[in-house]
């Protein structure tokens, strides 16, 4: 029996020791806190740590088209110009020291900053700038951001691959030219938001010599052919980076974290942090606890949890930040006969005809049946605002006085009684609307619309179906969905970026909807081609009015966001177009 007793004691000892050892660091931290009562010491004072969801997809500026990648890229690379603080129309020089725009709005010239070095020590030259844009176009792929460069420079909106094969390389190389210390962009037509496009991460300047050394485009046709339309991960710059930015890529632990270190040879003032670490933390509870513990300086807070952080000490909150994104209900004007969501396909109370939404009274009736107040106050906890049209607040030429729809069941009834010669009211209808799985906000919007229509007439039956993302995309693309809810996020802060997809007959959404209004199309094309702000304002005001008149879709709400930082983080500048929710890490610092 004795040896057993000894063994037990031994085990007890070992276990106690291990537990004690583990608690030691925790205790030590606790003690520190009690010593300084007033302000807790700044954790990791030389590092900025953010915890977010979703990892970057690539480090290649020409390939990246997701905000997580854009955020990293704009920290590692520099663009020619960047937004001035919170403005979306004023710019400050970055790698370009000055710029000129020709009178006809077709030639943009930039003088390139001298004495700038890439992270690897190479000097920045104007030919690097030329190369950066040309290589971007060369490496265009179907789902990438390069359409934004093609559209102004070559006048083609979608792709570098036409039915006749690749567009000629000369077209690309002629679009951007070096002239001494200057770089000149030759636009196909005047393009009002061109500067905004250049300020995006796709406007980042790469090191030509280094790129070629890493197997990137070497200027030849063969290389163009080989590199065009890369598959995911197929770009030579996928996971490496060499920019001129304030931070350098140190380590990208995909799916886990990205660590950037300060560029101590930066041409401007050095960044305030030695490191900038982005952690991917999917679980909200974990992110919250990290923020509360000070282990993260900023975390991504889904809007549902704003309330939870309301009374947390040691945080700074920035409220009422309008987001350049808007969800809308879209009506399908030409439903596919294969659609399983239209019931009988007849106007007999058990379905809808395929052209149901071509009747404007139906669309208006639906719009008046949506309870904005409940949606914004309840579902968005007030963190949102109703806007009339896709030209939302934060974009130029937003008309705050534009009349809009409101929740009014009487008006809805009036329109629906008038629709289809009164048949709709008499027989009722039955449709199914869809939202994408995981988006609780859109689900709630569907339910509110459902409740509103049901309240007018119990024969108005709306089913709600959850669909996985690809299924939903297919449903929209194949015109299966009679009504769908989806949203658009800004590429650049200009109304064109919104009216085109929402209203133009070949816009992303409106094309799926089969919505076409020649007057609208003409106005949109005109709006991008004129440079004069007054003229543009008139055009976009008219488009906003037309959107309300025509109701091809109606905006559910423009989201208003918040940012929660640790209170020791200073220097946050909100710019609605910034891909990073923290703004530019370069402006941030940690101090009281």
């Amino acid at each position, binding site marked *: 029996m004795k040896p057993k007793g000894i063994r037990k004691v031994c085990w007890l000892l070992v276990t106690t020791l291990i537990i004690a050892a583990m608690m030691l660091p925790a205790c030590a931290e606790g003690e520190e806190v009690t010593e300084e009562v007033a302000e807790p010491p700044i954790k990791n004072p030389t590092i900025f740590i953010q915890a977010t969801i979703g990892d970057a997809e690539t480090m290649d500026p020409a390939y990246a088209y997701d905000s997580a990648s854009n955020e990293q890229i704009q920290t590692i690379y520099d663009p020619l110009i960047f937004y001035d603080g919170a403005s979306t129309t004023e710019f400050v020089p970055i790698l370009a020291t000055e710029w000129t725009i020709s009178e006809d709005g077709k030639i943009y010239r930039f003088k390139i900053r001298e004495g700038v070095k890439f992270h690897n020590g190479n000097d920045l030259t104007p030919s690097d700038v030329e190369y950066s844009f040309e290589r971007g176009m060369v490496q265009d792929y179907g789902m990438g951001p390069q359409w934004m460069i093609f559209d102004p420079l070559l006048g083609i909106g979608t792709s570098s691959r036409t039915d006749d094969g690749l567009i000629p390389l000369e077209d690309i190389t002629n679009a951007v030219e070096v002239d001494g210390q200057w770089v000149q962009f030759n636009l196909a037509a005047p393009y009002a938001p061109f500067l905004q496009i250049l300020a995006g991460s796709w406007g980042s300047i790469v090191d030509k010599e280094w790129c070629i050394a890493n197997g990137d485009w070497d200027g030849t046709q063969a290389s163009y052919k080989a590199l065009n339309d890369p598959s995911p991960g197929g770009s030579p710059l996928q996971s490496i980076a060499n920019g001129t930015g304030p931070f350098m890529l140190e380590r990208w632990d995909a799916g886990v974290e990205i660590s950037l270190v300060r560029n101590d040879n930066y041409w401007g003032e050095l960044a305030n942090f030695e490191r900038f670490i982005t952690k991917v933390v999917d*679980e*909200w*509870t974990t992110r*919250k*606890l990290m923020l*509360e513990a000070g282990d993260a300086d900023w975390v991504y807070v*889904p*809007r*549902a*949890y704003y*309330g*939870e*952080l*309301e*009374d*947390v*000490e040691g945080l700074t909150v920035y409220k009422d930040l309008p987001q350049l994104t808007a969800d809308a209900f879209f009506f399908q004007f030409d439903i596919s006969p294969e659609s399983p969501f239209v019931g009988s396909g007849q106007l007999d109370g058990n379905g809808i005809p395929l052209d149901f939404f071509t009747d404007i009274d139906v669309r208006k009736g639906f719009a008046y049946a949506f309870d904005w107040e*409940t*949606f914004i106050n*309840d*579902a968005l*906890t007030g963190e949102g605002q109703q806007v009339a049209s896709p030209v939302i607040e934060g974009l130029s030429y937003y008309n705050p006085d534009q009349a809009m729809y409101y929740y009014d069941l009487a008006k809805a009834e009036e329109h629906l009684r008038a629709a289809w010669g009164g048949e709709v009211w008499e027989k009722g209808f039955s449709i199914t609307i869809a939202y994408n*799985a*995981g988006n*609780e906000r859109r*689900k*709630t919007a569907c*339910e*509110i619309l459902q409740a509103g229509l*049901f309240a007018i007439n119990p024969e108005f039956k709306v089913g709600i179906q*959850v*669909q*996985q993302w690809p*299924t939903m995309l297919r449903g929209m693309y194949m015109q299966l969905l009679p009504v769908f809810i989806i949203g658009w996020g800004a590429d650049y802060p200009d109304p064109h970026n919104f009216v085109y997809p929402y209203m133009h007959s070949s816009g992303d959404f409106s094309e799926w909807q089969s919505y076409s209004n020649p007057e609208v199309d003409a106005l949109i094309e005109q709006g991008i081609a004129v440079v004069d702000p007054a003229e543009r304002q008139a055009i976009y005001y008219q488009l906003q009015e037309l959107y309300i008149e025509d109701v091809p879709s109606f905006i559910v709400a423009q989201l208003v966001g918040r940012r929660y930082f640790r209170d020791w983080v200073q220097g946050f500048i909100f710019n609605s177009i910034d891909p990073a929710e923290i703004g530019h890490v370069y402006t941030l610092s940690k101090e009281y």
Partner: protein
Amino acid sequence: MTSLRFMLYQLRRNPLSIIGIVIILTFIIIAIFAPIIAPPPEGHIDPYMIPRDGYSPIPKPPNEEHLFGTTEGQYDIFYGVIWGTRSAFRVGLIVIGVVLVVGIVLGSLAGYFGGIIDEIIMRITDIFLAFPILILAMAITVALGPSPDNVIIALIIASWPSYARLIRGDILAVREEDYVEAARGMGGSHLRIITRHILPNSIYPTLVMASLDIGAVVLYAAALSFLGLGAQPGYVDWGQMISFSRNWIVGPPGNPLAYWYTVTIPGLFILLFVLGWNLLGDAFRDILDPRLSRK
């Protein structure tokens, strides 16, 4: 009669199994009387969708109107857990029922006939068994699209092979027994030999496993819902309700347990339900296991 007395005796001897029976009976009553215990509000279309009282994302603690409070999105927890009993039974019983049938048919074919049939069926089960159930069910629900029915299909596809294997093994054990040889010698048809002589003597471990697995299946379904691959939000499903609570585990500092009801209540319902089946399964094991019964 003796066997009934024996069962009762065994049950009496093991208080845990009584608890199990009480738990399951309670759940059965809850499931049957769900419309009376938690009547759907006026004008509520689908009773299997939890009614919402507003759309606010912040959970509300238990109050007079909502006995167990509301989750994020103001889904009534009381309604959800009561009606969730029905979907738990639905998932558990359908999956296990179908899997038992499939398992018995394929397992008997493989075990009884052996040879090439056995080889083919066993290689197929190998393929399925190379995936843990949760992983395979995850992949299938992803492909079919998340919905309660698809979760059931996915769990059936993922779990039949282990039953087929188990039954095959048990059949192999009795296949060569004298009474089977005798039945074969007397010219009984294959079907008759399998159903009358082999299955009754080999099915007991499978039945015990089935009773234990009802709980496990509900856990898998809940895990799938929790991972965002199961029932859609608002469906009366405990796992899905926990996924509502997932982000409310820890309350604000100073009151870390502020939203305890969102996690604890659906969690306890799952725990009790699974516990009930496991206790019951254990009792079955004691009762049915001839080795443990009287000598």
